[in-house]
């Protein structure tokens, strides 16, 4: 916990500027729900928040087991924050397995709140504890709070006539109540949620309400906590906010893009973690005219998207790495027929099935090169959950203007992580101009489906149903302009160059690269995608210590921005943290001949700020010692 300068201790209230909490329990214990409720409450209160859900791929791994532990980390602050926090200040552990899995991450001296009722012989054994850690002195370095939550909810729910199992299920709300008291939060929002969620199940609603209040009252009346904490609201820019995850923002961005382009949105998708929520959300937008199809497989999904795009709609598909691999051939077809298409890859840890719920940035090179032949496709990547909204619109702007498939690389961290979002005014977002090739009369010259716009090299969008434009396209090489099948060697060479040049020219159509920090200096940290928050925070910290460090973050990965080469040249060293083994670095090194240094961790987790900071310090030839 970072205590605010000259900590304001009034009686038993301590003021803090940032707190990071991790809720951890069995995957059936409702930890994601508990974390989400706490997040909403903190956001509504006005804190800046950032979250990291961390759950197993198994829906219900064996109860009490280590693989079954589900966690939800939230950082909330009175400052602008960029990450869900490196290490939790407080760990709520609902059972021994949750304690064991998460203890190593806790800050030294951090708080541990445990449900002592779950620390029985069976659960201790399942977690691999030889002795009860609550009593063997192993937690001496921490602030341990032992609460018999299961017992206390039984008392709270007395007289409701519920089964003991139903009562036991409310213990997460007890824990939430304790945390609400500890951080001076109102229970109002959660009580409202309980009333809505369990409408018609009054017994269950009442049990959860009582558990929540009992937790709160427990904090208030027992002597167990010596103090509670205040994290004042953050000074965020004025406006109306909501909390949003990357997947939610992505789905909304596409709906708005469809409105801006005045084209129907069509999504075909095959369920895959962690991308499915985009399919779910867009499927719920029937009243907005969104068409969705749950396809029979990944290939069918992108096929249907190509078909819809051919027909003049915004055809798109959403997937994750394994699905992306299956879509390669159809992406090649989209390159050849030069239709607008958006493919969302919510990256997860791989290769193969990998770790489906864990994050990684491993699909960049696949997106760039994972097709037969030279098959250029623009690749863009949002940097934060809220930014997914803007980049989803941007994906369509590029696809439509340049008549090309676009790969949009999100990842599991962005997809499920949440942050407050300053809700934009839709009316203020520039529209996306889309023109179809006009109908041609019987005396018109022969239609040329591969004639190109001189500026963008985009070909016309000639949709079926337009009189006079009957023509044939396909995966075979096209004769320049006329678009008929051609095996002419020189034509093929020319078409290969034209396709490459068309994508390269998108670099003229993207914003300048923003550089945060020193305009020139000793070190530039260059990142892309979801590493934004960790890198920015690390650079902020380094700069407060007087280091000449800057941060540049790429949202446009292919083509790279035109100003990037010049920016790289202004720094002595370039550090590239990536959650892969150096994929963007390979591109940057080959394109700019710059000796960029990689920092690559692939543990299925986002970077911690401190990790990037330490790496930067070591490059700067100094020690991070004593700066904490």
């Amino acid at each position, binding site marked *: 916990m970072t205590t605010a300068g000259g900590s304001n201790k009034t009686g038993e209230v301590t003021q803090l500027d940032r707190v990071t909490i991790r809720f951890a329990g069995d995957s059936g214990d409702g930890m994601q729900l508990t974390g989400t409720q706490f997040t909403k409450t903190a956001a509504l209160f006005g804190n800046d928040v950032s979250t990291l859900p961390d759950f197993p791929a198994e829906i219900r791994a064996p109860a009490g087991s280590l693989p079954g532990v589900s966690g939800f980390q939230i950082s909330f602050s009175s400052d602008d924050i960029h990450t869900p926090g490196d290490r939790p200040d407080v760990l709520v552990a609902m059972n021994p397995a949750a304690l064991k899995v998460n203890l190593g991450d806790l800050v030294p001296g951090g708080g541990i709140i445990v449900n002592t009722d779950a620390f029985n012989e069976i659960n201790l054994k399942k977690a691999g504890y030889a002795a009860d850690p609550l009593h063997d002195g192993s937690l001496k370095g921490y602030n341990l709070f032992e609460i018999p939550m299961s017992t206390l909810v039984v008392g709270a729910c007395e007289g409701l006539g519920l089964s003991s199992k139903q009562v036991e299920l409310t213990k997460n709300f007890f824990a939430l109540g304790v945390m609400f008291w500890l951080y001076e939060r109102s229970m109002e929002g959660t009580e409202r949620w309980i009333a809505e969620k369990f409408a018609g199940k009054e017994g269950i609603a009442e049990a959860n309400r009582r558990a929540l209040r009992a937790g709160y009252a427990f904090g208030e009346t027992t002597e167990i906590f010596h103090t509670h904490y205040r994290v004042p609201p953050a000074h965020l820019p004025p406006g109306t906010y909501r909390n949003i995850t990357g997947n939610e923002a992505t789905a909304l961005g596409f709906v708005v893009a469809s409105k801006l382009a005045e084209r129907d949105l069509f999504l075909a998708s095959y369920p895959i973690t962690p991308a499915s929520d985009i399919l779910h959300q867009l499927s719920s937008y029937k009243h907005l005219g969104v068409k969705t199809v749950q396809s029979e*497989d990944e290939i*069918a999904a992108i*096929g*249907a998207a190509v*078909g819809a795009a051919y027909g003049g709609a915004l055809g798109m598909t959403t997937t994750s790495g394994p699905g992306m691999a299956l879509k390669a051939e159809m992406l090649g077809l989209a390159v050849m027929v030069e239709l607008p298409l958006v493919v969302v890859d919510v990256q997860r840890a791989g290769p193969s099935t990998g770790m489906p719920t864990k994050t990684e940035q491993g699909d960049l090179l696949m997106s760039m090169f994972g097709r037969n032949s030279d098959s250029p496709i623009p690749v863009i990547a949002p940097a934060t959950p809220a930014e997914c909204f803007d980049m989803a619109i941007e994906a369509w702007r590029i696809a439509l203007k340049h008549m090309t498939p676009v790969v949009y690389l999100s990842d599991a961290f962005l997809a499920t992580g949440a942050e407050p979002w300053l809700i934009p005014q839709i009316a203020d977002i520039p529209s996306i101009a889309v023109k179809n090739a006009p109908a041609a009369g019987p005396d018109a010259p022969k239609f040329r489906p591969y004639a190109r716009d001189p500026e963008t090299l985009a070909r016309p969008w000639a949709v*079926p149903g337009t009189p006079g434009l009957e023509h*044939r396209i396909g*995966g075979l090489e096209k004769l320049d302009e006329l678009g008929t099948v051609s095996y002419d060697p020189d034509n093929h060479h020319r078409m290969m160059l034209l396709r490459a040049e068309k994508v390269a020219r998108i670099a003229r159509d993207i914003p300048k690269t923003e550089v945060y920090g020193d305009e020139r200096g000793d070190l530039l940290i260059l990142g892309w995608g979801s590493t934004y928050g960790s890198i920015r925070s690390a650079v902020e910290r380094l700069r407060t210590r007087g280091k000449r460090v800057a941060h540049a973050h790429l949202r446009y990965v292919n083509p790279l921005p035109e100003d990037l080469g010049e920016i790289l040249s202004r720094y002595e060293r370039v550090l590239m943290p990536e959650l892969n083994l150096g994929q963007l670095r390979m591109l940057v090194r080959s394109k700019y001949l710059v000796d960029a240094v990689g920092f690559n961790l692939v543990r299925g987790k986002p970077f911690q700020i401190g990790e990037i900071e330490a790496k930067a310090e070591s490059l700067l030839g100094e020690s991070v010692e004593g700066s904490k």
Partner: protein
Amino acid sequence: MTQSELPVLTKKDFESDQDVRWCPGCGDYSILAQTQKTMPDFGVAKEKIVFISGIGCSGRLPYYMNTFGFHTIHGRAATIATGLKAARPDLMVWVITGDGDALSIGGNHLIHAMRRNVDLKMIMFNNRIYGLTKGQASPTSPIGKKTKSTPLGTIETPIIPINLVAAAEASFIARSVDTHSEHLQEMMHRAGEHKGSAFLEVLQNCNIFNDGAWRDFTDKSVKEDRMLVLKHGEPMIFGKERDKGIRLNGMRPEVVSIAPGGVSVADLLVHDETTEDPTMTHILSRMWWPDFPVPVGVFRRVPRPTHDQLLVEQIDGAIAARAAKGPIDLQRVVASGETWTVK
């Protein structure tokens, strides 16, 4: 342009300017000709017709049609047609495929297009061989068939396409023969008239890699005795002398001779395309020369709402239901959930 304003189109209107490049003598020529002849039947403007194909010799057909055409990738034509039709219910969508394209690499998509009842008309050229890749076994090659990839003969049981699509809930199923031009035209016409997934298997001859694959029963000299032309509401009679028929014995069909005092026409199976239960389609699809005459014609034609129709109905319904509660405001959708204001 409304339908009534449409000029009357002819076969010539549907011929593109591309040279046809199939091997001389290929059955595809006849299929193309019948396709071009049939198109004016529907009174649909050329620009509203789309031909989508996969890979294989059949995949070339869209290049020769003066309509919109999309020569896609191996096995995936049905997926593209599904998206196109969902986005553009106003278009007439034809899918051109082959036995390898539809049943092997595209098998999954075939099944799902049929069960969804996507309003597409699929013509599957079945020549029991991979022609474009120069002669490997296909999923319809008979067991024991020796090809370049199966020098000792295939060891795999062939798929019966009609049996497969019937199991996949296809709402229109028919079979014809490349050289039986009038019958083929009639089948194309009826496939085109059907609302929903229409599957038309065309027994097609590859004279280079599998010549005569169907000759035993399709040849002019023998076809009347060896093939059964299915006609809705009519008893199943075949033979040059119209003296043979199909009778059901329990669940098994049998060939009977019609003779005075013996089996009469009244004892024969009467073909009903419109039976909801697909059992007869399964039974008929398994009838094969030399044990039985090979049936051609419309096996099954049942009305069922199409995929695009149901999709649009859901959307229209949701829009109407939502509109009843006040205007739909995208700003409010974006700002949904709990919000707070920072001053």
